[in-house]
């Protein structure tokens, strides 16, 4: 067996085991703290599939995770680990609502498209700022983008409270979003709508961009070895900006599509935490767009299950945090399974030599 194959197999085994261990720990906790553990387990594990509405919830939970996960794949591809996905996702939602409510030149589905295009451009541009500060003034990209998210939030909150808030409504939030702009529903009695298609198309486009175009190729080369990229004549700053723009745009689009079918009003009163979820989804997928659908589905499944369990039993949905933490811990841990892999590596390469 070649070393490359061995690495691949082990990254799958590691991911699988990490998930398994996390689930087992969660199940043990549930059994320990619940008065009706069997029921709790049942609603946690099988709840998401018990009826069409809940499957709808699962999809509804998964769609935004796909966007933010893809966003992180691109944002991080050059090795600049920014958190811009968080701010962009929030602002994407806000700006989508702003467009839907205040942009009056077009209406209906044309407004949907116009709004989302605007969201893509605005969020892409927003994601550039931390990197410009990083390159120009040498401030740490991670910290700058983290802090910048708060700037984005407070600007967004200003816009929301001054232009969008519906003070006459009993439920706090923006004015009602125009229903004729909503994505068509795909499955009756659920919230599964056209945004799912957009998400799936984005999975393909992101993969295609990163692996099949020269720009994606250059971005990945920078991530593998930035010195080499510079030496070979790649415009490193330009490509880093492009990656941030696209990553920010995808994350923002994720927030944007939420305003066209999932929510009757814009009602985000804080940052959404989706940027961090995006990091988790991307980590679980080894930062490869082609695996994002799977990892987003899994996370969406766990969250939907926990939500159902929360409502139907005495176990709180925070159990999800335990699962996430353990999972990421094991996937991120380089030493996890490294010994076994080294033993197999020694065994296989010794055997191969005998055959030869």
């Amino acid at each position: 067996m070649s070393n490359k194959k061995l690495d691949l197999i082990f990254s799958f085994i590691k991911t699988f085991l990490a998930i398994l261990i996390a689930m087992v720990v969660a199940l043990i906790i549930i059994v320990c703290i619940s008065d009706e553990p069997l029921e709790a387990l049942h609603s946690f594990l099988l709840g998401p599939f018990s009826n069409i509405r809940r499957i709808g919830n699962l999809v509804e939970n998964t769609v935004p995770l796909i966007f933010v996960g893809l966003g992180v794949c691109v944002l991080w591809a050059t090795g600049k680990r920014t958190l811009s996905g968080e701010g962009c996702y929030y602002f994407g939602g806000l700006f989508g609502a702003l467009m839907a409510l205040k942009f009056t030149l077009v209406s209906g589905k044309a407004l949907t498209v116009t709004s989302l295009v605007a969201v893509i451009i605005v969020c892409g541009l927003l994601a550039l700022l931390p990197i410009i500060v990083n390159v120009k003034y040498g401030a740490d990209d991670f910290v700058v983008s983290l802090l910048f998210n708060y700037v984005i939030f407070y600007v967004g909150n200003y816009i929301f409270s001054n232009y969008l808030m519906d003070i006459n409504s009993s439920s706090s939030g923006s004015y009602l979003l125009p229903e004729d702009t909503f994505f068509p529903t795909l499955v009756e009695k659920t919230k599964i709508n056209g945004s799912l298609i957009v998400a799936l198309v984005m999975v393909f486009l992101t993969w295609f961009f990163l692996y099949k175009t020269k720009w994606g190729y250059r971005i990945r080369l920078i991530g593998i070895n930035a010195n080499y990229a510079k030496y070979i004549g790649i415009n490193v700053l330009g490509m880093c900006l492009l990656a941030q723009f696209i990553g920010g745009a995808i994350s923002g689009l994720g927030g944007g599509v939420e305003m066209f079918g999932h929510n009757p009003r814009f009602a985000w009163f804080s940052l959404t935490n989706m940027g961090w979820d995006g990091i988790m989804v991307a980590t679980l997928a080894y930062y490869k767009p082609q695996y994002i659908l799977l990892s987003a589905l899994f996370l969406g499944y766990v969250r939907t299950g926990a939500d159902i369990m929360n409502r139907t039993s005495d176990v709180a949905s925070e159990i999800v945090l335990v699962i996430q933490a353990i999972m990421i811990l094991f996937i991120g841990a380089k030493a996890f399974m490294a010994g076994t892999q080294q033993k197999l590596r020694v065994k296989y390469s010794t055997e191969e030599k005998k055959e030869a």
Partner: protein
Amino acid sequence: MSTAEHSVPAIEMKGITKIYSNGVVANKDVDFSVNYGEIHAVMGENGAGKSTLMKMLFGLEKMDKGQILFEGKEVSINSPAEAIALKIGMVHQEFMLVPSLTVAENMVLREEPRKGIFIDHNKAIEETKKISEMYNLPIDPNARIADLAVGIKQRVEILKALYRGAKILILDEPTAVLTPQETEELFRQLLILKEHGHTVIFISHKIREIKQICDRITILKNGRSMGVYQVKDISEGDISRLMVGHEVKMNLDKKPASPGKTVLKVEHLSYGYGEGKLKLDDVNFSVRKGEIIGIAGVEGNGQRELLECLSGLRKIQRGKVAINGNDVSKMSIYDIREKAKTAYIPQDRLLFGVASGATIQENLLANRMDYEEFSKAGVLKEKNFVKTAKELIKEFTIKCDNEKQLVNMLSGGNIQKVVVARELSMPRELIIIDQPSRGIDIGATKFIHQKIFELRDAGTAILVNSADLAEIRELSDSLFVMYEGEIVAFFRSLDGVTEEQLGEYMLGIKKQTPEEIKEAFHE
């Protein structure tokens, strides 16, 4: 020699196997042993597993199979601290010294003599003097490391190991960074250590040096031991055959150069303002079509800065560099490569030359994605990529499974061939090569030299830098020597110029007159 038969060896390593996480088999069932009071050479081409074997002995790498016996007793060495406790010391290729501290401070680091809670500086100086006198290795304990020459730094490293009580000293390619004079001095020091009953393990791939001072030799090839020999019983030809598998004759057919018009012009180039001494100080030279200009010098005398200024990796601070009339300071790296048609093979291939986590194909074609043949509207043409990659792998005899293999799976020589294939397979006006054969095997070196000659004969201007005197002499038509950022000598022809003469310029002992140095520049 008789002691070897009658007493227990100082160190014995048995059946050592080591496989790196990228799948490279560094050592396979290697047996190795040394006695007290001998200088033992570990020879092999780069990538043969010499350094890995020694790193395991010094506790820097963990072995996968095998055992280590120290004076006949099995030991496990898991860290350098445990190796030092067994009186094993190692001098690495890159020195492990703190440049801002003095010699004495570096010597006692980790085992500082104390006075209360303070370091006892006088005691440190005293100890340094004592050990330096004991082994007749003179050193100034108060000198700052940063101010010392390479040869002296190496001496500090040796003394440091001795101060920690080392009886067995591992030297990893100690002569690679030294001038001929410094090498002689090092050998004198090693013989003193031998007289004191110390063991020296000498890693090298230079046969001549080993014949000169070593007693026994262990030869490695492809991570396996090819046997242990008495140096006096084995000929240079035999050693070479065991290392490479066949005897290598380095004689290449080199025709006389016929230079044409000037391609590269460097005028009054200075670099390194604000960093203390200038890294480059008023450098003037030119390279013409169809000639190879060599740069000789001890490493760290501005060669790297010079080549990086020419290739655009560093911004030119003062002076003028023009390639076929194009001002380099006004061009991006991309333009220097594509408009001025310059190729650059960097010294540090893993840092600059390749993206080792990417595939061979991705590395080979990274510089030609914009060509119509390889992309249309930004979308890559995968088929042409594969086709060209396959052709290049064949033409440059890169040993690999296929073009999709990751570069970090290849040997040093083959990684260098990937760099060379990428840089030299397109029509270029100027080729800049930094350390063409650093860390690669003889076969690959010969191949690369041959390629350089071919390109020169086809009319390319070539600038080569190498710390290996033999190599630079063989490659260059004309040659200049750099010392502390200046050109101190220029030789239009190398006929009758000896290595010792070059060594004197490299050490800054001699300097040519400005008129002689001016010869390096052509309008």
